[in-house]
């Protein structure tokens, strides 16, 4: 069986950091940052997700195959998001003739 090389202490520290980041994102949600509220909140969420993937899901010590699979999932998600939102968010940019 492949060893993950991750000890109990690393798991507990990771969970503690995740809890602190949760408190931080809730606190920062009340700061008047305008559009940056969403950026900060999603940035913290992405950081938490990455921590869980690397430590709890063992991607840090994972095989190249599992790492590539995870990366492929994110790549396809990026295509889905970009290919949809580039349409939705740019429709108002140009006038539509006859409308």
């Amino acid at each position, binding site marked *: 069986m492949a060893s993950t090389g991750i000890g109990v202490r690393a798991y507990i520290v990771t969970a503690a950091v995740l809890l602190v980041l*949760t408190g931080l994102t809730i606190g920062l949600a009340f700061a008047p940052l305008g559009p940056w509220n969403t950026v900060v909140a999603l940035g913290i969420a992405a950081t938490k997700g990455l921590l869980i993937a690397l430590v709890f899901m063992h991607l840090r010590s994972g095989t190249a195959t599992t790492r590539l699979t995870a990366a492929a999932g994110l790549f396809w998600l990026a295509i889905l998001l970009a290919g949809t*939102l580039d349409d939705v968010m740019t429709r108002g940019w140009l006038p539509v003739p006859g409308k």
Partner: protein
Amino acid sequence: MAARARSVPAEQYDDLEQQHRASTFGMWVFLVTEIMLFGGMFTAYASYRFLYPEGFAEGSRHMDLVIGGVNTGVLIVSSLTVALAIHAAQTGHRRALLGFLGATIVLGLLFMNLKAVEYWHHWQDSLVPGLRFSFEGPLAHQVQLFFLFYFIMTGIHAVHLTIGVSVVAILLILAWRGHFTPESHAPIEVTGLYWHFVDIVWIFLLPLLYLNGLG
């Protein structure tokens, strides 16, 4: 009881190591399809939030931030207990394995109970589209759309958590019967991957559904 433990690989594998890698890879491929399932909902949410920012912000302000925050903590601690359960399986500590699997089930059920309380509050506030919805003002339709996304996204997340709790309960029974050894415990590891993925989905649902429009 130890006779029930699988110390030999299934016949299509050379050894347990290869079997273990195949299990992990298979679960990751499944999780990629799950990324696309939830990704579709996140993409639709982003599109409509871009079109109706006021209504989505107003809807978020009707969320119970205390339950949402506590539930996030509950899921994070449950991910910790899952990680510790896997560690206990790797190191052959059967009592710790049983304890951490049991704790994971308790935390999963706690999350779903708090979620049910929250749904009940939405019902009392008449914020359930299609069944009981009334909202005064010009944003009524946008807020209704927000709550539609809220119930579908948190509902499908809750279905995933229900499946997770059920699978962990099966693992608990198998562990009780001495099914797992430090050499062979792939079912616990791949269930852990699934559990952590469901945790990550919630970590993105928290800011999108609860923390919008507060600043």
